[in-house]
Every structure is written in structure tokens, then in C-alpha cells.
């Protein structure tokens, strides 16, 4: 066996493993897999899909086998007598009309049951979260907690969550596959999903409805915390922004921020009132920036502030005019990072 063949064989094995893992929904490096549900909603959908999938496999094997058998058995051979000119067969016609009808009933009944079970109504004690889609980032409001944040949603494990989804501009679709199916974010409408996350972790998702130039760059994270961790997070978010230490770069950064156009679009509680861009009151506590695209570190923050459209095509955050100096940008970065 040559090296090339070995390579092909091992590749094939890799493929098979990938495919099996994916289909079996086992652990694997697929953070957005729909086949590894981590909530009651996700599991309900997954069960239904598995049911339909196996029906489809049965029908597929049956029909393709019939087709292949017909092709082999009745292929042209010299000396074969002319075929009988059959025009049809009533019993067969009735049979193959009824067979798919029966299978479809077996699919339709659990479908309708799941539709009503997953219609988006959570019990009244559920944690309420409002999701607002923007080109191209997500805003989250926790009306009962008085928290406003962006792109990274925190929810407590094992507690029902009621998500209400809408949009501030065009149509988006909120989708965190591990936690369940997507729902469109439509301006002027509110759509809802309800779920109860069953294991802690960080789940990624992204916008699923084409929403313009940077549709591909509209990511999101849902972080499922233990109850106590969630309480800690919520308390921190409820508080005002951190006050930078006197004479620190962060404090000088705050001064630069306050005299720049940043404040027209961004809220930092008690510092700036803008509502067009994400709320930055606790931006330092988030792990990513720019719609889940980049890690929240000084290098990326600096590049983002200098020219957002270079990192994210079409981004609505303009370059400052006149441009900020590198020094000013470094100070703003220090300030933003201090806002834990």
C-alpha cells in the first residue's frame, strides 16, 4: 500500500468518524451543531427530527433499492421477448398512495404535538429577556433585572427563560442551535422562544436571516451559568460602571471618550447616553467584541476603534473625524477594559 492510498484511507476514516459523530450528536468540535441539544426545547426538536430522519432513511433505502433492482433486472439483453405493454395496476396505485399517507400521519402527529409544546410560552416565573437585532449585533435587555448588554447573553441553568425577539432595523433571526430553533427578529413584531438550559457552558450562535453586508459577522454567545454565578453576574451588571483609578490610563481614556463622538451612540451609565450602538457600561466583562467576532483584547479593541469597517464590512460605527491618535485609542481601550 502506497503512502497515497494510506492517506486516502485515513481520510475516509476521518470522514466516517466525523459523520457518525455528527449524526450521533456526541461530543465533538462543533460549537454550533444542532445535533447536540442542551435545553428542553433543543431536545424536543432533536427527538422529532430523529423520528423523521429514520422514516426518511427507510423510504430512501426502499425506493432506491427498487429502482436499482429494476434497472439491473430489466436491462436490455439480446433475445429478450418484447415487454408486455402494461398500462397500470389499480391495487398497486392505491397501495402506493396509502403507504406514504400512513407514514406522513406518523410524522404529522408528533409534529403537531411538538409545535404546541414548543410554541414559546414559558411559565410566569421565567426569566424574561428581550432580544433586539441590529445591523450587525444583538442587544439584550433583562426588564426585571434592569440589565442591558450586547452579544453575550447570560442565563441561569435549569431555570425557564422567556426570550422575546424583535428588531430595530431589518429582519434578523436569533439562533443559538444548542438551545433550540431559531426565531426571526422582525421590526414591529415580537416573536418568542422559551427554553430551560440543562447544562452549563458557553454556546455560540449567529444571525440566520440574511440582513445585509455583514450578515456573516453577526454572531452571538449564550452563557449558561450556575445559579450563583448568574446572580453575581446580574448584580455586577446592575451596578454603575467601574470608576477608573485616579491618574490611571483608564481615567485619561474616560476623558478622551467623553470628548469624542463615541458618546453619541454608546451608553456608559452616568457617562454617555447614546442608544444606537451597544451599551458599554460593563463592556470589559464581555469575552468578545463586534458581534462575537473577535476576542475582547487590547489589540482587537484598538483596531476596532481605529476603523471598524476594516474588521467588519459595512459596520455602522464610523471612523472618528478627525481621526483619533494611536495614543488616544490606547487610552480609550484602557478605559473600556476597566469597565468590568
Amino acid at each position, binding site marked *: 500500500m502506497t503512502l497515497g492510498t494510506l492517506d486516502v484511507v485515513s481520510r475516509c476514516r476521518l*470522514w466516517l468518524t466525523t459523520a457518525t459523530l455528527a449524526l450521533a450528536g456526541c461530543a*465533538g*468540535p*462543533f*460549537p*454550533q451543531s444542532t*445535533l447536540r441539544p442542551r435545553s428542553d426545547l433543543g431536545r424536543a*426538536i432533536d427527538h*422529532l*427530527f430523529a423520528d*423523521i*430522519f429514520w*422514516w*426518511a432513511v427507510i*423510504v*430512501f433505502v426502499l425506493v432506491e433499492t427498487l*429502482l436499482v433492482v*429494476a*434497472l439491473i433486472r*430489466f*436491462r*436490455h439483453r439480446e433475445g429478450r421477448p418484447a*415487454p*408486455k*405493454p*402494461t*398500462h*397500470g*395496476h389499480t391495487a*398497486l*396505485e392505491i397501495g402506493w398512495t396509502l403507504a*406514504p399517507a400512513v407514514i*406522513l400521519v406518523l410524522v*404529522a402527529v408528533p*409534529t*403537531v404535538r411538538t*409545535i404546541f409544546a414548543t410554541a*414559546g410560552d414559558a411559565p410566569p416565573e421565567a426569566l424574561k429577556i428581550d432580544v433586539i437585532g441590529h*445591523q450587525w449585533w444583538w442587544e439584550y435587555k433583562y426588564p426585571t433585572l434592569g440589565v442591558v448588554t450586547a452579544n453575550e447573553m447570560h442565563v441561569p441553568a435549569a431555570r425557564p427563560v422567556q426570550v422575546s425577539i424583535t428588531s430595530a*432595523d431589518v*429582519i434578523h*433571526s436569533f*439562533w443559538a*442551535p444548542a438551545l*433550540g*430553533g*431559531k*426565531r*426571526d427578529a422582525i*421590526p*414591529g*413584531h415580537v*416573536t418568542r422562544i422559551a427554553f430551560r438550559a440543562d447544562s452549563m457552558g458557553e454556546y*455560540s450562535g449567529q444571525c*440566520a436571516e*440574511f440582513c445585509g*453586508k455583514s*450578515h*456573516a459577522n453577526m454572531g452571538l454567545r449564550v452563557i449558561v451559568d450556575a445559579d450563583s454565578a448568574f446572580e453575581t453576574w446580574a448584580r455586577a451588571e446592575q451596578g454603575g460602571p467601574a470608576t477608573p483609578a485616579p491618574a490611571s490610563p483608564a481615567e485619561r481614556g474616560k476623558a478622551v471618550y467623553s470628548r469624542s463622538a463615541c458618546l453619541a451612540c454608546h451608553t456608559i451609565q452616568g457617562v454617555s447616553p447614546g442608544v444606537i450602538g451597544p451599551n458599554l457600561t460593563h463592556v470589559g466583562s464581555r469575552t468578545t467584541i463586534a458581534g462575537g467576532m473577535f476576542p475582547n483584547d487590547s489589540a482587537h479593541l484598538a483596531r476596532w476603534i481605529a476603523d471598524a469597517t476594516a474588521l467588519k*464590512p459595512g459596520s455602522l460605527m464610523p471612523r472618528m473625524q478627525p481621526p483619533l491618535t494611536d495614543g488616544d485609542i490606547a487610552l480609550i481601550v484602557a478605559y473600556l477594559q476597566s469597565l468590568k
Partner: protein
Amino acid sequence: MSEAKGFKSWLTTTDHKRIGLLYFWTAFGFFLIGGIEALVIRAQLAQPNGHVVSAETYNQLFTMHGTTMIFLALMPLGASFFNYIVPLQIGARDVAFPRLNGFSYWVFLFGGLLLNASWFAGPLFHAGMLNVAPNGGWFGYANLTERQYSPGPNIDFWMLGLQILGISSLAAGFNFIVTILNLRAPGMKMMRLPVFTWMTLVTQFLIITAFPVITVGLAFLMFDRFFGTHFYVREAGATPILWQHLFWLFGHPEVYILILPAMGVVSDVLPTFSRKPLFGYTVVVYSGVLIGLMSWGVWSHHMFAVGLGPIADSVFAGTTMLIAIPTGVKIFNWIGTLWGGDIRGTTALHFAVGFIAMFIIGGLSGVTHASPPADLQQTDTYYVVAHIHYVFFGGTILGLFAGIYYWWPKMTGRLLNESLGKWHFWLQFVGMNLAFFPMHLIGLLGMPRRVYTYSPELGVGALNLVSTIGAFLIALAVLIFLVNLWRSRTHGQPAPNDPWGGATLEWSISSPPPVYNFSVIPTVTSRLPRWSTERHGPMQDPPAVPPGPIHVPGGSWWPLVAALGLPVMALALLSHTLWVAFAGVALLIGGIYRWAFEPFEV
């Protein structure tokens, strides 16, 4: 009675056969353009964080790929067969309205050129090349397509192009309905029509009922964009969901407009090469009619994520699942046709069988998203991209290729090379499965569609690479097909009247047929006139030389002139210049006026 020659005779032609060939070459040209767009898309997605094209160009590419393939390639490829074959199958000398037929073709050509001109029109709008092509998706969802969110001329090109193409389809739709109902040869009862002609008829009814809906939807969008109305503007109390209802009320029948003709081709090809009548002709015909009717009641299955409520979701899930029944019945009848036959493995048969094998996959994945909860994990992901490509590529394209290999000798008088044909089939078959099957997994693993880039963390890089390799294999297969077409002009074996032993009327006359088609209009006594049945021997083919003179209408310039008025009017809107609009209206009305009063004999 002799055939006119030269370039001018093609511009003024009213001969359904020539118009069929014009449709074929134009649509095939657009098919190649749409294919090149697909290859660039696949090159970009071959690996995570691809940098072949920018986000903006990518969005234009996927929009134009979808729009081109649906409106400029698949529909008109079907139309090329409606034109060329249907009059021959029903024993007619031409379509009912030959000049209207010319008009349909020219309007289609101009609409397609206008859409594609957008690739190069950037400089006229103070933008670069490759900057003003449509970029809102083939589904053009409002309110993204409103002026506020899409200020450039991109969406204007799309909207005006589709409006023009709609006029072409509507004119052709009425023309073919009248042709099929009124111009049948004596004895060609409805239930003796070849199934391809039957499916053409159903398709035309879908066209004349579905296109007005998108016309209205587009007119609203046009008013919003050009005149500041608020049909889809949330701030004025409207809802962008209205667009989705209108679009999919058109969009779902459109799916069947694309698939029914291919089903018709397969229903004609299988009996010929199994040497056996179509199994359950009546059931196959009624299933086609039923599919057409049911296609009106399923549109909201494109909108399960919109949140229409559990009752609406349940109803549309039910109607969508129901449509699987007549579709399944057709598949069983095709297998029944092969069963007990004497199957000749021609290239046309390969493609027809490939259609069945692949369409089953598209149908079954369709059932998985007929179920709304499951669909919420699948819609707008690559899983649906896999589904539509198994339906449109595995279904429509393989079916149309079956038709091309089957009828090419009739249309050109030359046979295509069978071994090149087999190479074409197998490369395309393997290529399409490599290209589209992995997309099921890519979608289930969480990659949305219409994204110009994806992160390596998703873990779908390798699957995407396989898909890209498959796409390039398809391109190779299509190249082989083009070589085959080219070769056939000089090296192809001359085709006899009937190279395959076909049962229907088109095989009773020469290849290609004379300009008048039938020297004597045949009298039809059975569903398979050229085969012997229990009660009849095969029909006598019409004599090669007509017994008397046959009147054939001459050509006319006026369909072309009238058609030219439409793109001129579109230019007026694109350039915001009023006098151009008047020029367009003058061309259209003047053309129609002269056409109406054209002397009968030319």
C-alpha cells in the same frame, strides 16, 4: 414554404422551432454565467475565512446565482422544450400566437441582459464595476430591500429585471395554454396528450396564476423605492411580513413551475427506453395536476421562523406533507414503468433515472423541514441549500439534460455522442453528490446560508472543501457536454426521423422538422400513436413531401420592437429620466399597434 436564412430571419422569426433554439442557447448561456457565479461562491467557501471576494461581492454573487438559475436558466430551458416540442407532440404547425411567442423570447432576453448588465453598470452610478448588481438575495426580503437599507441601484436592477421577465412568462403562459387546448391534431384527446405536454399545460396555469402575485409584490416595492409609498415600511404601520407572504405565494408554485416540466420529460423518456407504456398514465397526469393545485396551499412553510403561531404552523405543515403523496405516487409509477421493461441504457435514460434517484433525496429532506419544529433548526442553513439543490439540480437539471439528450437529434438533425454523454452523466452525478450532500451536514452543524465567511471553529471547513471539489467536477461535466454539442455539429451522426423508437408524434417527421412540421396533419387514434397497441397498429408517418402548398406565416419585426420598449422603460427608472420613459412607452405601444395591423400575408 422554404425556410428563410440569415441573421435578419432570426430577429423576425415566428417559427416555434427557431424560437425554441433561441431560448435554448440564451438560457444555456445564462446557465453558464450562473454556474461561474456558483464556482466563485464555492471558491470563497472552500476554506474558513476565505478571501476570494469581498462581503459585498459575495452577496451580489449569491443573489445573482439564485436569480439567474431560476429565472434565466431553468425556466427558459424548460421553455425551449415547450416551444420546440409541444407543437410537434400535439400535431400542430406552430403555437397559437407565433408573434406573441417571439415577443416572449425577446422580453426574456432583454430582462436577462438588464439583470446582468448590473455587473458592469457601476461606473454609470459613480460606483466601481461589480458594485451595483442585486445584493438582497433572490427572495429580496423587505424591509432590507427598501431604499433606507439598500440605497443603491442594486435592488432596482433586480426588481425591474424580474418585472420584465414576468411579462415574458405570462405571455408565453397564455400562448401555450391556448396552443395545447386548441391546436391539437384530430383525435388528440386530452387524455392522449404526451405527459410532457400535460405537465407543460399545468406549468403554464401555475405561471399565469403565480406571476401576477410577484408582480404585485414587486410593484409595491417599486412604489416604495421610487415614489416613497410605505407598503413594507414598519415606521408607517406596515409590516415587512407582507412581502414574505406575496413572495412565497409566488415562490412555492414557482418551485413546481421548475420541476413539473422535468417530470414531464422523465415521463416521456422512461417509456421510450423501457419499450413499455408509462405505468399509470392517468394517475401520473392527475398527480401532476394535483401537485399544481396543492402548490398554492403551502407557501408559509417558508416562513415557520416568522412565528405565525401554532395553528398556522400546523396547517401549513399538514398541506406540505400532503404534497409528498402525489409526488411519491409519480416516483412509484416511474419505477413501475421500468419494471418489466427492456431498458436501453442511453444517456437520456441515465439522466432520467438520475432524476428519480436524486429527486427522492430532495423530497425526503423536504419532509424533514415540512415539520415546523425541525425546520426551525434547518431553515436558513446549508441544510436547506442541500435540499433545494437536490430538487433543482438533481431534479430539474438532470431532467432537462435527459430532455436535451432525447430531443437534441430532433432539434438539430445530429445525434450526440453517447460515450461523451455517459462521461458527462457520471461526472455530473458524482460531482453533484460531492457538492450538495455534505451541505446537509454543514447545515446541521450550524452553518447558516448566505454567509460570505465562516469561522474555522465551526468545524465545517473540510466538508466545505469537499463541496467545492464537487462543484468543480460539475463544471468539468458541463464542459464535456459543451464539447459534445460542438462535436455533434460536424461529427454527430445524422439523425433519422426516429432514432429512439419513440411513440409520440414528434418522431414521425424528419429531424430537424420542416418549417411546416407536418406535411399532413396526422389523425391520432391512441395515446402512443407510433406504437402498436392491443387495438391499433402503429400510425402511418406523414409523407416526406407535402401533397399541396402549406401556408407558413412570415416573420415580423414588431414583437422585437415592442419588447424593446420594456428595457427602455426600465432604464428610465434607473436613470430617473422622464423622456426615456416616454420613448419606452412609444416603442411598446407603437410596436403593438403595428403588430396588430400587420397584413396577414408578409
